[in-house]
């Protein structure tokens, strides 16, 4: 337990310079983008010189970039994420409205990709080179090659427009007045298509990795020895081969969490899911620096936490990890 806690503390301390770098980097990048929040606002509405000056003053954009960065960091030190001019609300409120949707979508999609991917990977890797293996590999590669928005639109046309089994988008039925389990069921129905679209895209990655990793483990001495000892093939497959082959996948899971946050911009747009990816897109279009910084900070935090969880899971899966000190003592 103490080991886990010290790991968590080390990771969180290590995250601080990473987050600082993320803040300065993002701020600088947005400074280089031509036009500011006032330009973005006027592009949609028009206005005159007086309005332009007044908005720049009101939104604090009449100050230099260094001053604004200083103010932002000072506010952040007080755990204040600032004010979003694009939504006229505190940044934290805007993000917290959307975060649950993205976490739900991302969590379910990763679970689908990881669960189904590794399971099919085991099927393919149980007899590498077999016809089943070939078919699964080709099928998953084809899915991997499909652009996300296209897969999303095809799912909408088939399951929402033609068959009318599922809703074409949104996170839940509008103003349905549902509560409790009925509402959860409604949200689940709305998530089927976006989760499938997002999950299927990444399924191939886990499937291929599991299969390759298993093909390697089969050739290792302990696996061959187990088979030679007469241990049933099924038992070798699950206890020895699959379990060992799973380790690189868990590493991959941590890396994927970041990709999924980005990948969901497209899926969130196609399925009209109000999540962080779409919010980030709007923040850039509106040049809303505090909002974008807030999203990136929250995103970075999510990725750090997921990786932490992955490390803990790793330790549980592989007794060799981190055990050296304790056994020596």
């Amino acid at each position: 337990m103490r080991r886990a806690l010290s790991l968590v503390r080390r990771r969180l301390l290590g995250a601080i310079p990473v987050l600082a770098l993320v803040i300065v980097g993002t701020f600088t990048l947005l400074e280089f983008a031509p036009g500011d929040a006032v330009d973005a606002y006027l592009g949609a509405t028009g206005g005159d010189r007086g309005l332009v000056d007044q908005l720049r003053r009101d939104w604090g954009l009449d100050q230099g970039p260094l001053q604004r960065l200083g103010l932002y960091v000072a506010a952040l030190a007080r755990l204040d994420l600032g004010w979003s001019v694009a939504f006229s609300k505190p940044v934290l409120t805007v993000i917290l409205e959307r975060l649950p949707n993205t976490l739900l979508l991302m969590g379910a999609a990763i679970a689908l990709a990881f669960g189904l991917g590794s399971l099919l990977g085991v099927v393919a890797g149980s007899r590498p080179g077999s016809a089943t293996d070939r078919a699964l590999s080709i099928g998953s590669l084809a899915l991997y090659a499909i652009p996300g928005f296209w897969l999303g639109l095809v799912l909408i046309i088939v399951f929402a427009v033609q068959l009318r089994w599922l809703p074409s988008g949104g996170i839940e039925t509008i103003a349905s007045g549902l509560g409790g389990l009925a509402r959860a069921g409604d949200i689940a129905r709305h998530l089927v298509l976006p989760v499938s679209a997002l999950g299927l895209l990444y399924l191939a990655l886990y499937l291929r990795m599991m299969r390759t990793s298993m093909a390697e483990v089969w050739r290792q001495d302990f696996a061959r020895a187990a088979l030679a000892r007469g241990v049933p093939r099924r038992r070798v497959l699950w206890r020895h081969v699959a379990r060992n082959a799973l380790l690189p996948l868990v590493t991959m899971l941590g890396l994927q969490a970041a990709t999924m946050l980005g990948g969901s911009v497209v899926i969130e747009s196609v399925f009209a899911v109000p999540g962080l990816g779409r919010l980030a897109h709007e923040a850039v279009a509106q040049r809303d620096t505090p909002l974008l910084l807030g999203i990136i900070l929250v995103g970075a935090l999510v990725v750090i936490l997921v990786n932490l969880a992955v490390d803990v899971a790793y330790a549980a899966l592989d007794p060799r990890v981190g055990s050296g000190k304790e056994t020596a003592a």
Partner: protein
Amino acid sequence: MARFDVFAARGMSRRTVLGAGGLAAASALLPAGALAQQSPRSGGRLIVAADSEPRNLNPAIVASNGVFFVSSKVVEPLAEADFGTPDGLAPRLALSWTGSADGRSATFTLRPNVTWHDGKPFTSADVAFSAMEVWKKLQNLGRVVFADLESVDTPDPLTAVFRFAKPTPFQLIRNALPALTAVLPKHLYEGTDINANKANAAPVGTGPFRWGESRPGEYTRLVRNPSYWSAGQPYLDEIVYRVLPDRAAASGALEAGEIQLAAFSMVPLADLARIAKVPGLDVITRGYEALTYQLVVEVNHRKPELADVRVRRAISHAIDRDFVARTIFVGFAATSSGPVPRNDPQFYDAAAQVPAFDPARANALLDEAGFKRGANGMRFKLRLLPAPFFNETRQFGAYLRQALAAVGIEADLVNNDSAAHTKAVYTDRAFDLAVGSPVYRGDPAISTTILVQGGLPPGVPFSNQGGYQSATMDALIAKAATTIDEAQRTALYREFQQLVVTDLPLINVAEWGFTSVASNKLRNVTSNPRWAVSNWADVWLAP
């Protein structure tokens, strides 16, 4: 009626269904009158596609179609545009309006027995407050039109008299009524920071629908106002604006029957022919007659080559406007002949015609101006910045680059997003040619003359960003701005059109309204020329 119809010339019927066969075509051929004769049915929820969520929903501060689309159902103007009446207006919060002979005052008689959504009575004090504190001081368009408004007298609760410091044409005030005069409740705004008032995000008005709630990124809901001044209306129980950022997904939602309306061409033009064949869906081009957008080549007159009128004429000659209307807009646009669109019955002057497509003439003019073709066949090079506001503005940018190359002008295409485009063109003026999409709002003085008027400060979007300076033009604009006599004023704006097509401060290419795709159960979807941004009190859903 036909006088408004941009598309009549292109052979489209009132309620157009493209290439449809069988049942769909039969329903399209039903005269609109037959539909109107069915008696309206109360009840039902209308779900509408929305592609953006304006942060400020106060139409008195932000007079833009994106805001009106939602807020016009809640907050009403003094009058709305109308197909039938002589001055093109139907009463809303004002019952009648008259201008004085000297142009110094305008008197409005207001509708009695109107209450705000919070139960307080609507009076002339609300109109006076909105005019003096909001339209004149804060509104993007009102700051120009109401600049000379000195005071608003309220002799009784149902009369408002506008007093102007300088003679102000009543024709202009009238034409500005639908878009510029949304009335706010004084009791909620007085003494507060109007720009930061919380009613800007959840408006309170007198309209047929009250504010329901908003879930950012998901939907905005308006609910029926049971005490609306027009008895029996509105018919719908609620209107839900469902946020659908992806246009292809919006088509899907229409086909799946999850939404009943996608307005403002949310369904891409290229998809209309297909979607018109879907049973139960109609493609509609009417209802946008007073919301005309203009496709314009904006010229930076600081560039020496473009300061020569022969070069500007050559550019106009290089553009095949028929091609643009037919191919880029797939027929859903009319060619432009000048700065006032063809569908404006008051001001359009058919005698003013921009230089038409004639590449040979363009080449001759450029040779004459002294810009000979170089070794690579090109005469000179310029930066071309298409506005990102519509697919069509970007596509026209690509077309213009080719059209210019054909006459020996090399254009570097620079595609920016909205914020970057606004900064490059309107603040930095870092462009030579830009493609813009100004809105024509029923009177050249509202937002059209400002495009070519000299002496304006920098950083103002949709004004004279090209730096065009002409004493003749400025004198003409100034004279028209204070001419009270309507015939004289109209004649001056005809002169203005002549001057624009001769001197070409900017080059008009095409003009378009939008299209709606609606469920055929939805009735009264084209009942006025600003339908999409009007109050929808008469809209109903058939079973």
